[in-house]
């Protein structure tokens, strides 16, 4: 069930499920905070994914029952998690060696803006009174093999998040490979945004009208 109230397009859960379909068996995956965390719920039957959380655990499992939570077993979002058989704990330099060294297959992140050249902005609005906080996002996009973004297609004010050029401060340059929104799955290609799949019931022109840069059909 979902509390999502939009009229067309995938729900958040459906978006997360759509991401999960694209992740191959045995992949090492880092999930960002927020919507990306949902992806872990939808691993297709017959696949095993190994979740990495940058605070020092590979083989992260689902939330524990409440009375079994350990305040020292948490994920990057500071939520209680579990460790599955085959897990390993390690320190922060080793954890980011996994990230920076290209050992993580996939990072699924949220976004404020994605540009058609793959630039990502997801850490700061750049407003003067904002408390800047970057966490591991810049290391993730610079290091992992593939970066998928999962995000609503537009902001609450209906401004496109998929744009010609990011106006918010960048997290990384030319780092995003694929974008999952409630309307479509879109690749970032050398020619710009390219449609992979439309949500059933959504038409291409509508997606284009909600996108701030040209969208190639395949």
């Amino acid at each position, binding site marked *: 069930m979902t509390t999502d109230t939009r009229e067309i397009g995938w729900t958040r859960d459906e978006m997360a499920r759509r991401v999960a379909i694209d992740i191959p068996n045995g992949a090492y995956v880092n999930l960002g905070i927020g919507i990306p965390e949902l992806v872990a719920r939808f691993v297709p039957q017959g696949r095993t994914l190994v979740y990495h959380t940058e605070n020092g655990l590979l083989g992260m499992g689902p939330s524990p029952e409440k009375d079994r939570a350990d305040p020292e077993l948490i994920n990057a979002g500071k939520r209680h998690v579990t460790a599955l058989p085959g897990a390993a704990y390690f320190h922060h330099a080793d954890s980011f060696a996994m990230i920076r060294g290209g050992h993580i297959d996939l990072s699924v992140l949220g976004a404020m803006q994605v540009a058609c050249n793959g630039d990502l902005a997801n850490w700061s609005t750049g407003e003067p009174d904002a408390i800047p906080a970057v966490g591991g996002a*810049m290391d993730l996009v610079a290091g992992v093999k593939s970066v998928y973004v999962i995000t609503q297609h537009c902001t609450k004010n209906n401004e496109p998040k998929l744009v010609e050029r990011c106006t918010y401060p960048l997290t*990384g340059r030319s780092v995003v490979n694929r974008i999952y929104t409630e309307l479509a799955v879109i690749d970032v290609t050398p020619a710009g945004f390219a449609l992979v799949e439309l949500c059933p019931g959504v038409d291409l022109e509508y997606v284009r009208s909600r996108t701030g840069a040209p969208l190639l059909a395949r």
Partner: protein
Amino acid sequence: MTTINKQVKGPAEAVADVHDGATVMIGGFGEAGSPVELIHALIDQGAKRLTVISNNTGSGEVGLAALLKAERVSKVICSFPRTANSTVFPDLYRRGKVELELVPQGTLAERIRAGGAGIPAFYTPAAVGTPLAEGKESRVLEGKEYLLEHWLRADFALIKGRCADTHGNVVYNKTARNFGPIMAMAAKVTIVQANSVVAPGGIDPEVVVTPGIFVDRVVEVPSPQHESELVAAGAVYP
């Protein structure tokens, strides 16, 4: 009989010589691994104008947030100074009471590890093309752009372990390990609070995470407080 014994009586003794203006690394990611008792002892001790290197800035008004609230910290070097229930740092920052050096988390970890390993500088791809690259030297190596980053070292490190021996060997609890092992390497004086302190031989040499050479003082804190429980209970330190 070994004549090495790094155990000290309590948190107060452990942090007694932290001086005004010291750079202090404080372990933990959120509350996991946060050495609450050592931080509280440091508040009691009174050292001022500290530079704190830590991934976050604490929550509520206990632990690291309480140290900030007491205005003992003039600069914070961290990756993520906001968290749920974190109001102290944002307030001080907006009022210009504390300086912030924001560092990507992996660069923060690697700079600390470099400090411990005697590597004064290294190249990393993180933050290239972003505002955090401003003022930094960059270089193309094998066709890709990297930033030059410098080591971080500290006068003191405050760390929480699960078990330590009197030679200073430490093992950790789950994801509370995080910054502990690398901060232990990077400080002149490393102070570890552990749920238990045992004699040499009490930790299998194959499973030691932080070898004793990196640790100067160990203090037993059998039932450490958890930040989230303190915050939920509305606790304020001191």
